[in-house]
């Protein structure tokens, strides 16, 4: 309204203004968009930028190795160049990237292999590593330096890359063939503006948690203080290779369905349904067509928006069995427990892996591990470790449905303290892992899992399962604790019984001692043997546990400097 009246005041016609406005409008490339909204990708501040960059590179390396069936060995090195400039070098022993694709993988946003298929992997969108490259370019102006080799008989290729942020296309600054010791793999080198701090949300912590949930990985990590830590793999068994599945009809949305109809090579609707979706056979396909009032021999490419809408409704009306769940590859309760034992000096460990379940047509599995007691603080809120597809989630704990599920679980019945709607309080670490062909994150920086009721329900069921194991232990411990207290009572008060009898009956010293020893014998015989409760945690690794914790004072100083 305001602009309209202004327009008449200055005597300009609306047509003029519209023309003028039109001249200002132009296409926004996705790279430009993200350059301005880098917080959406996890580059909100310098500290987080360091973590995100390392994380994107490591995620890619792990995905590549696992897909190629190679036991991953990844080296991460962070070098402090100047006060807030760091060089990050990540090198893997993966299959390498063919020469032609190198520029696109690293310098074009939304270029990737994982978006269009449904299988459990760390990466999803094809944004992460190119976003890191772009962040490096924006903050230091330095290009990304990539080396890749796909086998011993081929050359290693070296590239220096920029992104043309307007066109979202790679700009090759330099390319050459180089000598490289590794037979195959990729090495990424990025210079970025960042800051390094220890603590809960640090790269150190990320590396450690990655080691916990990826027991088949060896990580060699050198932090900016030139401290090197080697996380050695604890198993040589690669996780079962996640299978790629076709989408399930229940999870598909209108836009995607239209896209699929346009791209399909099938000629009839029925064939389209049976070949592009999982769990749809000829009969189900016919039923869907019937429920949508569409002919099974409609040509997919000719279907209009309205017809697709009918199709969506038809799908909803049709009973279709749940998608196959063997495409999920969980860590396994045993390995999860072992990972926790290495990290936490506790008395009691338990872990469960839930059977797979489905949200919006996407299969997923929840795993929960807990570590209770030991050196953990008794009056602090539970220490929560969140993982999605084997990737630690360090930020946005409050916004995550995992946290919500923990808060909604009634921990009091399992022997912990808890205020309504809060994390339980007690000496406990709770690790939750969600594995899925498509983990629904709340944002592209992949830090919090979205609040799907199916997911929350499964997480809660898993928590309850370990909770029951915990309550068994806690009550046993309490029983033994009471018993020990009672025994100490015997020690404490029997001499007084003997002494009082001595005073009243004028007993001799030896008689007093006799009363004491006979009473002690009698009462202790009555109580029987004490059960052993706490098991010793032999797998605890103190050095490992201290990683990422750092000295608090250092941390504070650095935090102040950053402000």
């Amino acid at each position: 309204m305001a602009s309209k009246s202004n327009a008449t005041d200055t005597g300009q016609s609306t047509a003029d203004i519209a023309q003028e406005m039109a001249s200002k409008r132009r296409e926004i490339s996705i790279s430009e968009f993200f350059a301005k909204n880098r917080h959406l990708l996890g580059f909100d501040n310098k500290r987080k930028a360091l973590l995100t960059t390392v994380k994107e590179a490591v995620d890619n390396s792990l995905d590549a190795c696992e897909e190629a069936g190679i036991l991953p060995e990844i080296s991460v090195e962070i070098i402090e160049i100047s006060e807030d400039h760091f060089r990050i070098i990540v090198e893997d022993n993966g299959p390498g990237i063919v020469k032609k694709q190198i520029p696109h993988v690293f310098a074009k946003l939304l270029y990737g292999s994982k978006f269009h298929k449904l299988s459990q992997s760390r990466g999803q969108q094809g944004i992460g590593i190119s976003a890191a490259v772009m962040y490096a370019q924006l903050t230091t102006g330095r290009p990304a330096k990539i080396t890749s080799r796909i086998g011993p008989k081929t050359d290693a290729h070296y590239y220096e890359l920029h992104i043309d942020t307007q066109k979202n296309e790679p700009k090759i600054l330099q390319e050459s063939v180089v000598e490289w010791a590794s037979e195959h793999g990729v090495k990424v080198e990025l210079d970025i503006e960042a800051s390094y701090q220890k603590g809960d949300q640090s790269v150190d912590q990320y590396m450690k948690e990655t080691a916990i949930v990826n027991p088949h990985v060896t990580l060699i990590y050198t932090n900016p203080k030139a401290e090197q830590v080697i996380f050695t793999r604890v198993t040589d068994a690669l996780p079962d290779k996640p299978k790629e599945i076709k989408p399930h009809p229940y999870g598909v949305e209108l836009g995607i369905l239209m896209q699929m109809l346009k791209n399909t090579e099938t000629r009839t609707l029925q064939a389209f349904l049976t070949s592009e979706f999982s769990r749809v056979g000829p009969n189900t396909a016919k039923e869907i067509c019937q429920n949508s009032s569409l002919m099974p021999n409609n040509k997919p490419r000719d279907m209009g928006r309205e017809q697709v809408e009918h199709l969506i409704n038809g799908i909803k009306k049709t009973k279709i069995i749940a998608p196959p769940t063997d495409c999920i590859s969980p860590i396994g309760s045993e390995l999860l427990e072992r990972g926790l034992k290495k990290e936490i000096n506790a008395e009691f460990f338990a872990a469960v892996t839930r059977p797979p379940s489905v949200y919006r047509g996407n299969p997923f599995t929840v795993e929960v591990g807990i570590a209770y007691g030991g050196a953990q603080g008794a009056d602090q809120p539970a220490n929560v470790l969140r993982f999605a597809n084997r990737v630690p989630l360090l930020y946005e704990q409050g916004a995550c449905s995992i946290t919500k599920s923990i808060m909604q679980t009634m921990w009091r019945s399992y022997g912990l303290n808890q205020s309504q709607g809060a994390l339980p309080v007690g000496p406990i670490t709770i690790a939750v892992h969600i594995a899925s062909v498509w983990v629904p994150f709340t944002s592209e920086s992949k830090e919090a899992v979205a609040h799907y009721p199916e997911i929350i329900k499964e997480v809660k069921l898993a928590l309850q399962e370990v909770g029951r194991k915990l309550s068994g232990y806690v009550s046993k411990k309490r029983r033994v604790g009471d018993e020990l207290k009672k025994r100490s009572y015997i020690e404490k008060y029997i001499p007084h019984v003997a002494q009082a009898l001595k005073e009243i009956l004028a007993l001799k010293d030896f008689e007093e001692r006799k009363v004491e020893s006979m009473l002690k014998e009698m009462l202790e015989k009555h109580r029987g043997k004490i059960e052993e409760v706490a098991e010793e945690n032999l797998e605890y690794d103190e050095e490992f546990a201290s990683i990422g914790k750092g000295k608090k004072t250092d941390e504070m100083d650095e935090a102040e400097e950053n402000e």
Partner: protein
Amino acid sequence: MSKGKQADQKVLKEIDGVATDVYRKILDKMQPQLSMPLRSLQNVTYDPKLGYFELLGKFKERTLTASTVKTFAQTLKMMALSKELVRTDDIATKREAYYVSKNWGDARFNEQPESDMVMDDIESMLMVNREQIGFIPEEKGGDVSGKLVVIDVDPETGKEIEIDCTKFGSGAYSVPSSVEHLQFDTDAEFILAIETAGMYQRLVKHAYWKKAKCILVSLGGVPTRACRRFLRRLSDEKKIPVYGFTDCDPYGIANIYRTLKVGSGNSAHINKYFCVPKAKFLGVTPQDIIDYKLPTHPLKDIDIKRTQDAFKNDPFIKHYPEWQKALKLLITMKKRAEQQALAAQGLNFVISNYLPEKLEHPEKFLP
């Protein structure tokens, strides 16, 4: 005096007996036990012919186990202290006994109620009162004025002295913690046992005892054992009736007056001597609230709970339909009235009207 010595000998023997039993059991590799009457309303019965709460046969056994070892040790230690007191003809107040326990190391009491409890246990175990085992309370017995001469002995000379309770002016004679040796001389027609100090003060101020030829006693809440024993001896020996005059609420009736008349569950083992079975209730009755249009306060939840409890568990209330009727009236009105509510009709209304009108019909007093 020789009678007292005999009683002492008996107590000493009892203590030794209990301790010997414990000692023998231990040597025989059996768990020793202490056994004492259960001290609660559930273990008393009321027979109007006897006139007081009498113990039923329920006993509480304290077997020595890991969870009872502390109290067990404390009980024996307290018995040792008691033996020492009786043997040396000394006394300790309940508070002093609590402080003595501070030398017992881990077996010491943390708070006085704990030591009082153990003391009550021993008392009932030996079926004696605490003065006999050397312990005395701190609280004094109650205030007395009016037509009474108390004959006591001078603690230094041992000579008899006469204390005239009409000669305290606005003050009062104070009932000592032990009253067995006292003798009385009186021509009073009745004893008025008054709950509150305020009402007592008013009656003393106006020398009501002169006008009504009576003895005034201030109970100060639930009467102490000494006060109960004092009233009992006085009324028995001089054949004077005792009239209770309390607030009209469940506490005044079911706790103060009932304890005065028949004793309590907690001290059932000594009720025989420490209550006044012939006492009657003058007021304030629930009917008085209506008759005298007394200003009231609403009954509190705890009052209602106390009454329901009395209906269910108190053998005294259960025995008298009159009391049940009166308490039911109170519950229906949902009101309570204090003694001093009578002041609403004029400050001295209680002297000029209420008491004289009431005393004309002692037969109407509640039992």
